């Protein structure tokens, strides 16, 4: 077991100095504890998502394999790793130069402030270190009792659907209403009170019929289970699938962790942009020595460099924050601004409102990547950043630039970001065909599911549900119903 090394005196001094600057700038963060680790250790920690203890599973081994190779083949070097906890833990690579350590520390304060203040993180468990360790213990115990392969296979099935969560719901809600057999008064036609001789004029046949139909529809709805489409598929399975206790526990662990990490997936651009914005500000305003400036410029430009053809979230985030700050400083917002048609006027618009800093703090609190891009990406920004959409050309076999039109670029980006890039799938019927079969529905938005993956995922779903499972989706323009009955996958068009 390795004890992580404490910071050297020099680093401690710099940490305090940078921390003070961060506070002075208005950042509000969970206290950060820095640990110094070497390259091997940082790869191990990173493979575990930043948490020293995770449940045993090959997926962490796979991530480690990729990171270690990436490092060995000189492709990438993690020199910063930070997690969403209180206190916040961050790992510094021992081989970093002093300049790099300073950069990382400044960057991490940005992240910590974001974790603490962005509303999408409000529900996350800040004591996740303990929780992760607890998950690890539980899964290990199950493995000891039921076998490594058995438990791992079951975990694989759970992980297979760990993107089917409801981002807005963190609690497991009770769904089934208990029935006690007595007649529910609301299920009977209520007649309007009237004197007996007035009755047939007040409670007309049409009225009575209408009431009967309404009651019938409501009964139908209640017989439907779930009553309304359920986005939290994992939660639904926890409630309703025939699982052994240990299986329930594993599924619950997978679900909790998925919900914990979900906001990070929804705010990647903003979070990285915010942290980069602050490390730039803090570093260039009194933390860098003259001697370090060149190295800093080199490193910083490396992290925000545009990868050829790809969109660098750090760069997009920081540029958008800067754009917002400038616009709100100059009053380039509001009805007058929106309505203004004069290009030149817009370019020289400067009402000296000086609300930029205030605005970006507000933005980092309230928005996620989708609303961030939707609200603040302007045509001008899009042009200055040289954004384009690209598509795969079948004939040439490569990706080619398609359009620089603002509306298209924005729409494409938003589509990619929505539901953190995952398809929207809900449970619509847990008593399908009146045989207790599970029916899911994919809310198709123009993008097909990967068909072979979907087939296998259904197989995994079957392991959890125990009875045949189905999904309604569309493939190549046709509505299709895919099902797995325990033996084979069938596809039907309808």
């Amino acid at each position, binding site marked *: *077991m*390795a004890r*992580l090394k404490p910071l050297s005196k020099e680093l401690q001094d710099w940490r305090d100095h940078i921390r003070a600057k961060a506070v002075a700038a208005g950042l509000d963060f969970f206290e950060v504890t820095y*640990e110094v680790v070497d390259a091997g250790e940082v790869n*191990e920690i*990173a493979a575990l998502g930043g948490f*020293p*203890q995770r449940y*045993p599973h090959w997926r962490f*081994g*796979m991530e*480690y394999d990729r990171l270690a*190779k990436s490092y060995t*083949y*000189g*492709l*990438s*070097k993690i020199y*910063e790793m930070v997690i969403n906890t209180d206190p916040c833990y961050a790992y510094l690579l021992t081989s970093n130069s002093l300049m790099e350590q300073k950069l990382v520390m400044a960057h991490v304060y940005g992240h910590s402030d974001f974790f603490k203040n962005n509303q999408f993180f409000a529900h996350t468990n800040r004591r996740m*270190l303990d929780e992760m360790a607890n998950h690890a213990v539980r899964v290990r115990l199950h493995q000891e009792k039921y076998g490594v*392969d058995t438990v791992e*296979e079951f975990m*694989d099935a759970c*992980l297979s659907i760990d993107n089917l969560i409801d981002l807005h719901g963190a609690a497991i809600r009770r769904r089934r209403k208990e029935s006690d057999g007595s007649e529910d008064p609301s299920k009977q036609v209520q007649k309007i009170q009237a004197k007996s001789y007035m009755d047939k004029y007040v409670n007309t046949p049409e009225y009575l019929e209408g009431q009967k139909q309404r009651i019938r529809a409501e009964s139908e709805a209640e017989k439907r289970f779930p009553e309304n489409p359920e986005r939290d598929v994992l939660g639904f399975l926890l409630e309703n699938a025939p699982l052994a206790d240990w299986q329930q526990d594993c599924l619950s662990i997978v679900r909790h962790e998925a919900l914990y*990490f*979900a*906001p*990070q*997936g929804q705010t990647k651009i903003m979070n990285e942009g915010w942290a980069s914005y602050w490390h730039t500000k803090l570093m260039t305003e009194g933390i860098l020595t003259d001697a370090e400036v060149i190295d800093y410029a080199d*490193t910083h430009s490396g992290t925000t460099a*545009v*990868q*050829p*053809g*790809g*969109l660098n979230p750090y760069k*997009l985030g920081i540029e958008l924050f800067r754009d917002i700050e400038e616009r709100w400083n100059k009053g380039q917002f509001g009805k007058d601004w929106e309505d203004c048609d004069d290009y030149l006027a817009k370019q020289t618009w400067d009402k000296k409102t000086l609300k930029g800093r205030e605005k970006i703090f507000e933005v980092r609190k309230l928005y996620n990547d989708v609303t961030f891009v939707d609200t603040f990406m302007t045509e001008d920004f899009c042009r200055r950043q*040289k*954004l*384009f*959409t*690209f598509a*795969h050309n079948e004939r040439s076999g*490569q990706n*080619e*630039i398609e359009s620089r039109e603002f509306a298209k*670029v924005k729409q*494409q980006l938003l589509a*990619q970001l929505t539901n953190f*890039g*995952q*398809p929207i799938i809900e449970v619509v019927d847990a008593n399908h065909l009146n045989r207790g079969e599970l029916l899911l529905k994919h809310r198709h938005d123009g993008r097909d*599911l*990967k068909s*072979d*993956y979907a087939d*296998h*995922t259904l*197989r*995994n779903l079957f392991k959890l549900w125990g009875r045949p499972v189905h999904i309604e989706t569309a493939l190549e323009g046709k509505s299709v119903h895919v099902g797995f009955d325990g033996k084979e996958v069938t596809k039907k068009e309808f």
Partner: protein
Amino acid sequence: MGEGDGRVFTMSGIKRDHSRFRDIVRGKIRENLKKFISNGEMIGRKGNDKVSIPVPQIDLPRFTFGSNQGGGVGQGEGNPGDPVPGGEPQEGDGEGKAGQNEGQHELEVEVSMEELAEMLGKELQLPNILPKGSRDVTSKSHKYTDIHTLGPQSLRHFKRTYREALKRQIASGIYDPKNPVIIPIKQDMRYRGWAETPRPQTNAVILYIMDVSGSMGDEQKEIVRTESFWLDAWLRSQYKGLTRRYIIHDATAKEVDEDTFYRVRESGGTLISSAYKLALEMLKKDYPAADWNIYVFHFSDGDNWSGEDTKVCLDLLADEMLPIVNQFAYGQVESRYGSGQFFKDLLERFNDNEKIVSSRIADREGIYESIKHFLGAGR
């Protein structure tokens, strides 16, 4: 294990996960995951060239979007219709991994071919090659080309002795040019001695043979190219001097240079014997088996002209090729047009022979296994 204190991490945890992952990838455990294993690649850099590094991956199935849907958004210069600048963009981390790898920054570092070869060797667990030369000691010839200060009178070296004496006399001032009398003393005496002929550095020659008949398409050639790159890298790391020769063949064979080898677009029928005959000619002429470690790699889609020609090939292999090579490797690339018969014929005849290794390469993913197969024997 220190559960209470989450900050102390258990080395054994990740090592165990890593070891389990490797076992799964090797097919030793969790066979039901085998179908989800893909041999992805990372593109590394060697100088200005891009290099492909095999990285195995297990993709758990999920409900996710098909990858060629709708493209994406990029950033940079270019007009509609232009290829996305700089090449293929990376797929996003959107598969639920986003957020796990918060705050990773990338820096590029150069890596040498030696290091790459070392990684490959480690990854595929390739044993180091035993060079042929080191086994053979008795056939050394001794020549009297050396000079010793001690020896029998019969081996006196007159000129050298004289020179030493002259040097001594000049240095001590005794020498008189008007009366040049040189009297060597004991220390001046020089004798001929024998020296071991310097053994040739362990040498290797690789002979690449590729079938370029009509049935080998661009994709097949690309597979051959990738595979030979890695075979090359590995063998070069094992031998100081490595010579490579290239033969292409359809119904006739000819030697070409490396560039042509990968680019050529012949399209005749296939007579594998033509290649084997040419290969044997080259080997006998330039690379005496005693001094050279010979490796032959033949890539084809297995569709030879006739069973008769195949018989000729097999005889050539048995009688002439196998005795002189360290290893003969046959890689059959799958092609829609090839029958793949040659592989079966080889296997039938040489099933027990250690010197022949053959493998079928179905597609890019098969390269990894094929290299392992070819180089795993450590010959």
